[in-house]
């Protein structure tokens, strides 16, 4: 009786269990419901037996059943664990099943992600990272707003100040809690023979304190070390130098090191992560500013007021902003420059000097010549590498689409059996994510090698590049972001596509049909068109950069660098009187000229390395309007050594001595700039006063051909050559140019031997001329090499993509082709049927790609030499290359189509 009553009664608690059961993972649901229902019913039965099934106990049952909700919630992680694990396991199984697909996919992703990560890593190191010091955002660089009033010697390419200006800033500024100046130099460590240069960092006393750097060993430079006339103060060495030179010897403090023939006592080692103030260059040694007099053998760097070699950095006082600091610096500028004006400053520049203004700029990421030179190319390369990755993604999407069509029946079956669409999409995304994760992991590893390779590519023996390429959160985040993005890019479309189909229709179709529907390929075709368009952009870029490099390499320099060796000889240790140095230089050159194999040798400025300029005017013209002229100091036989043709007049000869009238030889650009192209021989030319010399008049005795002076990219500039032999005194060193028939190695050995015979205390360093010139176009070489590599990769990927879709088309049209052939279609017709498709796809790609090229190549125009970014020859070449590749990609599928046997094709029906 009771039982039947209970069955008909509506029991809210059991109903609640039914509802809550919906959220219990399917695997546990039956058991879960069963247990809760059994407990509730059992309790209900007992209560009924005891006649205590009153409303209070019913409420209690309801309360108990509602606590099943918490139980169900606790089971939720199981759902995810379960399904994720299931998805992952299934994904791994699918990837292992198609090993070749997986390999291709992972490798192409690894290449794409690796290239992107490598370039990003360089950008991160060059641009985004801050100096490894506490609170780097507080650091500011004090700079002159313009260098118009600056005259004298310049030691770095970025704006610098003189020691006089620094001392005024130090004494007058209020904006910084600490400020310091730093400069660089490369003194010699060797005590004779070939030079061994060390990278020296000169720091004013407060530097380490301002930067808040603690020593790794011993102590660092303090204000007590840095005062005029400090003699040989304590030397601080870098951590790397400590490791390489002293094998990390813990007892290094107190030992002596000879720098530029002066013994210095080592007082400490900087921490491992401190690489100096310049990103891209590390340092070996650090000395207080005052020591520069001892190392250089004179105190011009500190006293002249015309040597521009220091960068001033300060740490903002608490509560000060960069703008406030600038306002403050501007306000103290007039008095400051007034006080810093050197006594014998060139009168023409005094006003500009006094009008100079100081400003504060953020310096948390240090200064970097590398950054100035490479930031733009690196961003461009990152964009290019990004495009390559995009093409790779399009390729993978196409492969996955093809694979998804093959798996249509599997998915239809799973949907028919109750799998939800979301679940299927998730399954496919998990597979894509697995691929992306594998690709990213491999790519991150690859990037480590690639970025180091790039740094090695850009480093030269004379300019080694040091970059901290450790993985930081930015690089890791970038790689992980790329992985997720690529996964969505190539995985989402196929996943949505394949689950869109009506399961019934797919099952009925049974994978057969005369001709696969056209619109069913539209997405694949679209992807191929995008690939072709993007590849065209990259190929065009590659062609442009390669042609630009080629133009630079074959540009007429005006001289012949082949077989020329440059040497810098130093002989301070001989302690010759200054007036003897000139004669000694001549003697050295004479001894070198008679070395067997040496064709010519001369003292003289080395183009691309030794620059100098001045202002001047033709005698009789307005001296108030001087024009810029580049200056070269050359010895006898200089033009013969570099094979620069003499066009008119004479070369310097033994008659040009210190007491004879000053003579000049000029180039064609000079005669064009000053004499409207007239023959300059016999004219007189004034060179404006410099901090060291008054206005001086020269007679022009010769005219030579134009040569490049400091850069392959430059227009020919006016050059005036003056005779080294007319200097009454000169420094104890010489820059030599030696042309020889024999190998450079032999010449180096012979010159070293000769110098050693003259005096073992002479030091010398060599550099081949041609590689030195080529090092100046490293940026162009980098762009050409990498864009070429990426262009090739893009072509290859586009080729594979095209091949893929065409072969897939042929495979799914086998029936149609069979019927066509059975009805009498000739092989050529079938061949062209397929090849035409390849052709049309590429033409569509070109139509899409060209407007993109016109839009984006503008960005690269500043990196091109002698070419417009829309250079018709380059673009035609790129388009032809694209077409040729398309035809190659289309050939095999087209051939395969002609081999379809109509009988076999139709038997499947």
């Amino acid at each position, binding site marked *: 009786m009771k039982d039947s009553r209970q069955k008909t009664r509506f029991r809210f608690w059991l109903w609640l269990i039914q509802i809550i059961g919906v959220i219990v993972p399917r695997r546990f649901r039956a058991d879960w419901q069963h247990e809760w229902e059994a407990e509730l019913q*059992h309790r209900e039965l007992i209560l009924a037996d005891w006649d205590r099934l009153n409303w209070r106990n019913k409420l209690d049952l309801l309360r108990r059943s509602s606590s099943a909700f918490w139980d169900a919630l606790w089971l939720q992680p199981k759902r995810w664990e379960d399904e994720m694990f299931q998805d992952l396991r299934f994904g791994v199984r699918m990837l292992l099943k198609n090993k070749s697909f997986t390999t291709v996919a992972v490798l192409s992703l690894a290449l794409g992600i690796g290239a992107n990560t490598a370039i990003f890593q360089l950008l991160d190191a060059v641009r985004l990272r801050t100096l490894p010091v506490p609170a780097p955002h507080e650091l500011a660089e004090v700079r002159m707003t313009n260098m118009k009033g600056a005259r004298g010697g310049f030691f770095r390419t970025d704006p610098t100040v003189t020691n006089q200006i620094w001392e005024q800033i130090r004494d007058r500024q209020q904006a910084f809690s600490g400020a310091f100046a730093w400069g660089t130099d490369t003194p010699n460590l060797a005590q004779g023979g070939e030079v061994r240069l060390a990278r020296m960092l000169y720091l004013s006393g407060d530097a380490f304190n301002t930067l808040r750097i603690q020593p790794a060993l011993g102590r660092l430079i303090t204000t007590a070390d840095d005062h005029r006339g400090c003699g040989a103060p304590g030397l601080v060495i870098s951590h790397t130098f400590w490791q390489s030179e002293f094998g990390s010897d813990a007892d290094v403090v107190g030992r002596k090191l000879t720098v530029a023939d002066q013994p210095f006592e080592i007082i400490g080692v900087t921490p491992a992560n401190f690489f100096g103030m310049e990103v891209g260059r590390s340092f070996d040694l650090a000395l207080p500013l005052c020591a520069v007099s001892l190392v250089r053998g004179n105190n011009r760097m500190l006293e002249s007021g015309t040597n521009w070699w220091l960068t001033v950095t300060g740490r903002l006082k608490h509560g000060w902003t960069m703008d406030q600091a600038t306002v403050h610096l501007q306000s103290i500028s007039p008095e400051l420059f007034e006080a810093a004006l050197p006594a014998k400053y060139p009168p023409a520049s005094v006003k500009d000097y006094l009008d100079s203004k100081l400003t504060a700029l953020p310096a948390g990421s240090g200064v970097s010549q590398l950054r100035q030179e490479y930031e733009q190319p690196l961003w461009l390369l990152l964009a290019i590498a990004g495009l390559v990755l995009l093409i790779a993604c399009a390729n993978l999407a196409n492969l996955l689409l093809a694979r998804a069509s093959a798996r249509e029946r599997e998915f239809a079956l799973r949907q028919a059996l109750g799998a939800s669409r979301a679940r299927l999409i998730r399954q496919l995304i998990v597979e894509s994510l697995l691929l992306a994760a594998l690709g990213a992991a491999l790519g991150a590893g690859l990037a480590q090698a690639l970025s180091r390779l790039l740094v090695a590519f850009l480093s030269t023996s004379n300019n080694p590049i040091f970059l901290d390429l450790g993985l930081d959160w930015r690089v890791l985040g970038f790689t992980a972001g790329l992985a997720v993005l690529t996964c969505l890019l190539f995985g989402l479309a196929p996943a949505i596509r394949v689950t869109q189909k009506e399961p019934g229709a797919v099952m009925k179709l049974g994978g057969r049909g005369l001709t696969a529907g056209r619109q069913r390929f539209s997405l694949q075709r679209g992807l191929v068109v995008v690939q072709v368009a993007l590849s065209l952009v990259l190929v065009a870029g590659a062609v442009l950069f390669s042609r630009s490099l080629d133009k630079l390499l074959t540009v007429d320099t005006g001289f012949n660098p082949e077989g020329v060796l440059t040497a810098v000889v130093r002989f301070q240790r001989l302690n010759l009187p200054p007036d003897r140095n000139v004669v000694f230089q001549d003697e050295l050159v004479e001894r070198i000229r008679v070395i067997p194999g040496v064709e010519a040798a001369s003292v003289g400025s080395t183009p691309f390395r030794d620059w100098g300029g001045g202002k001047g005017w033709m005698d009789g013209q307005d001296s108030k309007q001087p024009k810029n002229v580049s200056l070269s100091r050359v010895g006898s036989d200089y033009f013969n050594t570099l094979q620069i043709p003499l066009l008119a007049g004479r070369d310097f000869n033994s008659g040009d001595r210190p007491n004879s009238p000053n003579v000049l030889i000029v180039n064609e650009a000079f005669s064009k700039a000053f004499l409207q192209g007239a023959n300059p021989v016999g004219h007189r030319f004034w060179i404006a006063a410099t901090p060291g010399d008054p206005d001086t008049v020269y007679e022009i005795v010769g005219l030579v051909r134009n040569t490049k002076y400091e850069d392959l990219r430059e227009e020919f500039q006016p050059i005036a050559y003056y005779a080294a032999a007319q200097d009454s005194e000169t420094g104890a060193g010489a820059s030599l140019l030696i042309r020889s028939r024999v190998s450079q190695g032999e010449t180096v050995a012979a010159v070293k031997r000769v110098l050693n015979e003259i005096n073992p205390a002479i030091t010398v360093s060599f550099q081949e001329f041609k590689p030195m010139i080529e090092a100046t176009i490293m940026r162009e070489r980098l762009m050409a090499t990498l864009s070429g590599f990426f262009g090739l990769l893009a072509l290859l990927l586009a080729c594979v993509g095209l091949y893929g879709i065409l072969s897939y088309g042929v495979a799914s049209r086998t029936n149609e082709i069979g019927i066509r052939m059975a009805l009498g279609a000739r092989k050529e017709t079938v061949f062209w049927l397929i090849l035409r498709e390849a052709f049309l796809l590429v033409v569509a790609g070109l139509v899409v790609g060209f407007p993109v090229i016109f839009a984006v190549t503008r960005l690269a125009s500043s990196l091109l030499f002698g070419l417009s970014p829309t250079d018709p020859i380059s673009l035609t070449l790129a388009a032809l290359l694209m077409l040729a590749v398309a035809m190659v990609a289309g050939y095999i599928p087209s051939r395969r189509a002609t081999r379809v046997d109509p009988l076999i094709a139709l038997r499947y029906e």
Partner: protein
Amino acid sequence: MGRGAKGFISYAATAILQSVNAGYLYGFDIIDVTGLPGGTVYPALRRLEENGYLTSQWEHPKISQAEPRPARKYYELTRDGREVLAEALKRYRILEPRRSKKVRQPKPSRA
């Protein structure tokens, strides 16, 4: 809950193991005897089972069919469970006296 190293289980889990050990084998009985809410007891039972401290079985259909009602699920201590309980009781001494005391009889069970 006692997911980690053997022997480290929570106070609630100890109380549950203790009540199973004392012969209260069903979820609702354990709720009654421990005074813990159902939303705590059931998840704890599942974890303890996952960790191998408890096993569960369905009661014989003969019993449930007599009522008739669905078969109930009952829990039993494993050897591991007994060890863990012994360990835990050393830590949670406060539970110890309850063992010897006469526990308030819950609503009768028919198991």
